[in-house]
């Protein structure tokens, strides 16, 4: 079920759309309900309860934030809580291997489509960034890096084939030109080497794949059948690598950390200035040498201010876009803050941040406890790369980028006593709620605004869409009554006029 979840999410635009993640949440929880009814399940671990708590807080924030925004966001953490619970129940090396194979399938599909020039690149017509199937280059970069880490660290019956596969993942990671994914991957690779020195071969295989892709990109460009040849050469070279280990002495690690800290102290200010400076986003390999954050600092500033304005409970789930529009004075802001931690602080306050921190801490603790298990280093590395990358991008909003980390986390969690029937009943309720929301979201995305309005009566978007499509002032007025600050009202058709009054409080 979990592998199907990952594959389906990957090939449905990364699972980004509201209907997709809501329906996937329904699928997970209803499957858990059916399984729990037939076979008593183990109790959810504390980490699962933290994510479930985050989902509950997200829905509850409808009371102090915007109901439409909060309730449309709630199925996402619910999906993650369900997936983590299912992963905890499945557990172990088999799950992690299945996650590796699923992510490899998605990555290879992207490479094949690029070779066939069958899908658009990420970033527009003049971009050469690999993005499909997740349809976001940085998200695919994270998935590819995770795949490379898992391939490097899991024990394999056929190590040469695994090395070849890891080379493909490395090549795909390079072709996304995602600086954040490659940097986070490098950091996680160091962690992996420290935990499992024998993963050096796999990491070298990934580097071989990167080198093959980079050389081809420099020489001739990476679209068309020539990519297949380069990938094949890279995979063969990786498969020919001998097994070796790299032991990093603790003193060397310490010296490296000190040197890094010294460099950071010297270059922090100019780097930070360069990161904050606006710069055109190059759509090719040149962006790997670019330090610009491409507008992230402005987004983070707006996010910080929203959090500081409501530090305990946050502004309410899903309220970031309207706050960003208000603070920047521009409708052209992206749909999220590009940082899981800052956005959680802004929308759910310290309460939400505490739940998130507890979840991450509990998984790390579980990893330490499970360190004797052969798959534990792989799981820890996969989780670590996600935890790092989610701080600077919108992986949380892209299930296909987050689910591998959750499967890795679940493989480390141990199951406790048997749960009662209450868990199955709760799972049924969550699944039905997520399913109804998913149907409403799908109807809205399809343009069936009447059905969407009936299923999502707290959401202004169906009436806003109806007003934009038909010019109906009555629909516009209804939307304004439900949620006058809804960004869709501002964007759909400014000629309809803005809502006269904003809801107080």
């Amino acid at each position, binding site marked *: 079920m979990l592998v199907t979840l990952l594959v389906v999410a990957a090939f449905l635009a990364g699972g*980004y*759309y509201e*209907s997709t993640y809501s329906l996937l949440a329904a699928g997970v929880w209803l499957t858990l309900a059916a399984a729990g*009814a*037939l076979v008593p399940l183990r109790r959810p671990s504390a980490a699962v309860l933290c994510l479930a708590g985050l989902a509950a807080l997200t829905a509850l924030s409808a009371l102090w934030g915007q109901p439409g925004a909060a309730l449309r966001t709630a199925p996402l953490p619910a999906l993650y809580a369900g997936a983590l619970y299912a992963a905890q129940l499945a557990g172990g090396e088999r799950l992690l291997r299945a996650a590796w194979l699923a992510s490899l399938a998605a990555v290879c599909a992207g490479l094949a489509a690029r070779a066939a020039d*069958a899908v*658009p690149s990420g*970033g527009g017509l003049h971009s050469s960034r690999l993005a499909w199937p*997740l349809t976001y280059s940085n998200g695919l970069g994270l998935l590819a890096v995770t795949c490379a880490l898992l391939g490097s660290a899991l024990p394999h019956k056929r190590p040469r084939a695994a090395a070849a596969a890891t080379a493909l993942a490395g090549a795909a990671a390079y072709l996304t030109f995602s600086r954040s994914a490659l940097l986070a991957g490098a950091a996680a690779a160091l962690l992996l080497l420290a935990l499992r020195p024998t993963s050096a071969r796999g990491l070298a295989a990934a580097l071989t794949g990167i080198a093959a892709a980079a050389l081809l990109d420099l020489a001739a460009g990476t679209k068309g059948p020539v990519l297949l040849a380069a990938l094949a050469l890279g995979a063969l070279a990786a498969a020919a690598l001998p097994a070796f280990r790299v032991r990093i002495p603790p003193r060397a690690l310490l010296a490296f950390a000190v040197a890094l800290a010294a460099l950071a102290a010297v270059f922090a200010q100019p780097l930070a200035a360069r990161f904050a400076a606006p710069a055109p986003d190059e759509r090719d390999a040149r962006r790997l040498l670019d330090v610009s954050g491409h507008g992230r600092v402005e987004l983070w500033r707006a996010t910080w201010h929203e959090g500081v304005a409501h530090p305990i409970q946050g502004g309410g789930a899903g309220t970031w876009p309207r706050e960003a529009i208000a603070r920047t004075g521009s*409708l052209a802001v992206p749909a999220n803050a590009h940082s899981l931690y800052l956005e959680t602080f802004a929308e759910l306050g310290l309460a939400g941040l505490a739940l998130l921190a507890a979840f991450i801490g509990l998984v790390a603790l579980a990893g330490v406890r499970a360190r004797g298990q052969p798959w534990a280093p792989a799981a820890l590395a996969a989780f670590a790369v996600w935890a790092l990358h989610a701080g600077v991008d919108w992986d949380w909003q892209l299930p296909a980028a987050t689910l591998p980390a959750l499967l890795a986390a679940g493989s480390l969690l141990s199951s406790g006593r048997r749960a009662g029937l209450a868990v199955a009943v709760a799972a049924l309720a969550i699944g039905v709620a997520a399913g109804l929301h998913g149907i409403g979201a799908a109807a809205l995305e399809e343009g069936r605004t009447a059905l969407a309005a009936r299923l999502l009566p707290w959401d202004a978007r169906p009436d806003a869409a109806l007003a934009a499509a038909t010019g109906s002032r009555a629909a516009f007025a209804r939307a304004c009554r439900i949620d006058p600050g809804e960004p869709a009202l501002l964007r759909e058709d400014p000629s309809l006029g803005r809502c006269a009054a904003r809801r107080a409080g």
Partner: protein
Amino acid sequence: MRAALAAAALAALLAIGVVVAFAAPGAVGRAASPRGGAAAAVYCPPGERQRRTDDVKILNGQVSVQTKRSKAFAGQQAKARAVYFKGHRKPKDRNAFVKKQQAQAKVLQKQLAGRQAQLRAAKAKLAACE
């Protein structure tokens, strides 16, 4: 009780699938399309594409006007200089006139460069919608 709960869960799963398949199949199709674009949805929310296309059109027009102004000024610069030099012999006066012309040309070039930078930024924003 357990069997009823399991049956309810499976029935709910089936019912949701059937309703989505009949009521909103396009939503799934759109997500599955290579142009389904998570990135486009984030960086180009609904309604933005038309606004950004309009912005690029307007800025294209402004760059065109500014370019014509710069070219027209450059074209008449030499003629104006010749006319001025005919009536003014002193090097000091001539130098001052040339300096004034160069300053005017610089202002027009700066305005053109500004508009071109705005146009590049607008095109980059529109690219996020592709």
